[in-house]
């Protein structure tokens, strides 16, 4: 297949800005990132603001240095397995039902998709400013994340990419 060979010559690039921390948006980010990696599309996910909460280790309960940062993490538990729905959250009943449905229909959970995305070479870059503002340290974040970067790096990646998503 010459078309396939030509397509494979120059790798396509995708950038996802993972801004929201909600369950359904995290799911969308990780489905697209893992599949893009599987399709040999060079994929970078810039993780910023609420999105960074997703990339805190699941077992971390309270993060931050001062009482405001600590209260923020207490009010919304960080970690990929603890995302809330933007609608129909119902004190956690909504996400519970979502995971039951996902299990029944063999849909991969965000945590599994995140592992698969990392296995196919997707780069996750944390936003330095968000880390500072929420008082997050490198060791609070999951293993395998890239160096923290800022808006300029994100913009450079975005303008060089074939496609960019803000989720």
């Amino acid at each position, binding site marked *: 297949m010459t078309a396939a060979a030509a397509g494979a010559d120059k790798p396509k690039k995708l950038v996802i800005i993972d801004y929201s921390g909600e369950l359904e948006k995290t799911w969308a980010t990780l489905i697209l990132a*893992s599949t893009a990696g599987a399709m040999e*599309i060079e994929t970078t996910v810039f993780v910023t603001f609420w999105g960074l909460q997703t990339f805190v280790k699941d077992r971390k309960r309270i993060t931050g240095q001062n009482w405001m940062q600590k209260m923020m993490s207490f009010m919304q538990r960080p970690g990929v397995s603890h995302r809330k729905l933007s609608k129909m959250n119902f004190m956690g009943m909504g996400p519970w039902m979502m995971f039951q449905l996902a299990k029944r229909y063999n849909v991969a959970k965000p945590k599994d998709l995140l592992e698969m995305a990392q296995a196919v070479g997707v780069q996750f870059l944390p936003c330095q400013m968000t880390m500072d503002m929420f008082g997050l340290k490198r060791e609070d974040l999951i293993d395998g994340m890239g160096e923290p970067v800022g808006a300029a790096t994100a913009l450079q990646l975005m303008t060089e990419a074939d496609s960019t998503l803000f989720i």
Partner: protein
Amino acid sequence: MGNLDIKLKVDASGLSCPLPILKATQGIKSVASGELIEVVATDPGSVKDFDAWSRSTGNAMVEQESTGGKFRFVLRRK
């Protein structure tokens, strides 16, 4: 058909998008360049998805057939 030398079979039956593609990716990475893998899926979206995946990666689609809600793909690692 039937005389293809398939190195690995991947059963993605019952799995939802994007798991058949992710399983196929894991599978094809475990065989050598030029070798074949077979993937069986039941997700109807997988017909178009495997075509897109094949074009994007350059791993050629050698065979594709649909029988009774099962979709079978034979793919050659580039």
